[in-house]
């Protein structure tokens, strides 16, 4: 193939998934009646047709080398009629033909891939994450590394279903937050306004840089005869939007950036519906390679949740019921003025009632 040959848009669109469906999925498409959980990470779906489809969910680190992915394929070829799927949280789902295949399949997953089976139902699910220092140009921390460290720590919780409900965790490596709203999230936090590299600013489109700032803290300036911008420090709230627009506004600081933990996000419309995650604690050190302080904080939350929540209560639902006062008391996190919203809808987060727990 000649690299010089100009490429033309092919507009192929999405792959034809029908070709890729497991045969049992194809036969019973839209006819599933119910499912049963057999053990953590293993369940069976029953169809109107009477057919059963077993699923074995293996935890994956998302990043896969070609050789590793080929080994995954080998297993699927052997047990799953050459079909497999990934979940929306990067797990790999194997669908063996027969119930008897489950155990050998699991053994092989463990032996050949080193992957755990679990991450379903009321367990600690796989952590969704972003690029981090491995590939992005904006991160203040890593992604895959924190996730590896946390999942080592909560491996038991991944392979067992011992929580009141599923626990979903995400991490993000800069304040853009490509990671999701989840029960628990680990995000980056800056502690001062961006530092401007006036020499480099000229490479950015200044009107765009100025208009990206949500609090209008950036205004045009001239330094040594060149157009540049300045940041009004009183207004700036360290959000980093400008840095994503223009790398010359460097918001990151390896010295002072910290990690914060957020709790109670939810996407499902179950019961009370979706909810934002809220600040649990901040100021945790960005401490590679294992970020022990982050793990410790997540552990505190999980312990309190496990002890306090009713069945089926997600983390946020539990906190809403027992109250944030109790959440802070039970996790030992300090409630600070920074926990109080100061942005656009701040007032709507205030306790506008005489409801107090004393």
């Amino acid at each position, binding site marked *: 193939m000649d690299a010089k040959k100009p490429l033309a848009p092919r507009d192929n669109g999405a792959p034809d998934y029908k070709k890729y469906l497991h045969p049992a999925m194809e036969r019973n498409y839209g006819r599933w009646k119910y499912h049963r959980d057999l053990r953590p990470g293993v369940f069976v779906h029953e169809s109107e047709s009477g057919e059963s489809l077993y699923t074995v969910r293996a935890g994956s680190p998302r990043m896969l080398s070609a050789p590793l992915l080929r080994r995954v394929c080998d297993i699927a070829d052997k047990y799953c009629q050459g079909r497999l799927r990934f979940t929306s949280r990067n797990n790999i789902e194997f669908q063996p033909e027969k119930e008897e295949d489950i155990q050998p399949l699991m053994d092989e997953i463990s032996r050949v891939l080193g992957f755990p089976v679990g991450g379903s139902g009321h367990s600690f699910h796989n952590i969704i994450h972003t690029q981090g220092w491995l590939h992005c140009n904006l991160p203040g921390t890593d992604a895959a590394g924190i996730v590896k460290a946390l999942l080592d720590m909560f491996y038991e919780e991944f392979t067992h279903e011992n929580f009141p409900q599923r626990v979903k965790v995400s991490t993000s490596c800069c304040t853009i937050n490509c990671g999701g709203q989840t029960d628990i999230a680990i995000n980056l*936090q800056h502690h001062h306004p961006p530092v401007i590299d006036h020499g480099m600013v000229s490479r950015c489109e200044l009107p765009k840089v100025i208009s990206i700032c949500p609090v209008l803290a950036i205004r045009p300036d001239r330094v040594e005869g060149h157009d540049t911008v300045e940041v009004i420090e009183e207004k700036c709230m360290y959000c980093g939007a400008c840095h994503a627009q223009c790398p010359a506004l460097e918001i990151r600081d390896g*010295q002072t950036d910290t990690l914060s933990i957020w709790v109670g996000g939810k996407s499902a419309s179950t019961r009370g519906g979706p909810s934002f995650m809220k600040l649990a604690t901040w100021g945790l050190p960005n401490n590679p390679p294992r970020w*022990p302080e982050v793990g410790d904080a997540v552990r505190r939350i999980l312990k309190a949740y496990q002890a306090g929540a009713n069945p089926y209560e997600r983390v946020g639902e539990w906190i809403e019921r027992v109250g944030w006062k109790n959440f802070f008391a039970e996790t030992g996190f*300090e409630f600070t003025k*920074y926990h109080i919203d*100061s942005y656009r809808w701040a007032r709507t987060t205030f306790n*506008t009632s005489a*409801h107090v727990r004393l």
Partner: protein
Amino acid sequence: MKLPLLDQLEEGPWPSFVKDLKEQAKRRPQVGQLLQQLEQSYENRWDYWRGTAINVPGYGGGIIARYSDLGEKFPQVAQFHTIRVIESPGFVYSTEALRQLCDISEDYGAGIMQLHGMTGDILMLGFDNEKMMQASEALMENGWDLGGSGNGMRTIPCCIGPARCEMACYDTLRLTKYLTDKYIGYLHRPEFPYKYKFKLSGCGNDCANSMSRSDMPVIGTWRDDIQVDQEAVARFVEEMEPEWVVRNVTSRCPTRCIHLHGDRIEIDNSNCVRCMHCINVMHLALAPGKDRGVTMLIGGKRTVRSGEMISSVLVPFQKLESDEDYLAFCAIVERIWDFWGEHGNEHERVGEFIDRVGLGTFLDGVGIEPDPQMVANPRSNPYIKFEEYAAPRLEGEPQKGANVLEHEPDRREDYEGS
């Protein structure tokens, strides 16, 4: 007097102010002209009053001056001012006191009053410039005082509280008088950025309707356990049936912390938010705890500029029994007035001020510790304007405090960032 439109308000079972005013018009002709002007408003869907400031010497408010646009047509209402008179706490009166008000009102004005204005004052209507002074003098001579207006503290209303209510968790009447008297200068000689209203309710039922109508609601509460008379509970459960009790009492608890076990009530008081519901419905069997005090809230107001604002928790619990408690309460109030007074903009209610500077900054300014009870939930956006460079704890360093602020990070040799 023929008033084709207003006359229609003489009919119907509810007491008619038109009828009453028509009667009074026979004694005080200005009331007749008042009705005639009102009739014209009804006809034209238009108002005919103009207002300006007019003060009793030494007072910066308390009089609502009104001049009629139809002064030529209705000369007796050309000046028709209202005097706001501070009401008796709890709105309790002797007939003697009320008769005195009647006399003053008729001696100098139109002899009509509103009991009470929305803020709590006695509103005495219908004085001209001169009589207004005389009436004020007469009121003050007799121990009454003028109410508030302008950029100052307002007359304080309270619920009947301990005078006649079993729910009262503090002495609303006493605090009303105490605050009014102590801060009477702030009421008479306004010097705040804008108005400041207290409203005092003895419990969360908020019979003073304070939450969205006052800058500082003070609501009675308790910090020990709800008092339960299990025998009375059993009687109640028998009378109403357990299912009724579950459906209407326990399942309505906002935190589901109250349960019916057989004919006993059990409460997880640590999760009770003092919402009053169970006590209200089962008031023969349940009562507020014994260790009582108040929750101080802040920032409520109605519509102008803000839309609508309901007050939010500022001090979750403050005792209010000893003199020291009262002084502690006042210290908080005064710190608020200082901070808002210094930094508030003209015409900026304290709630709007908080919206502008942020509740966190406000707490700093008034010296109150942040408390999770102040919020329905912590922030959901990461836009935190840290004042500190948060110093990460690194391995091997002392593990102190949950949010790490104590020290600067060590500088690694090969640090290349920023």
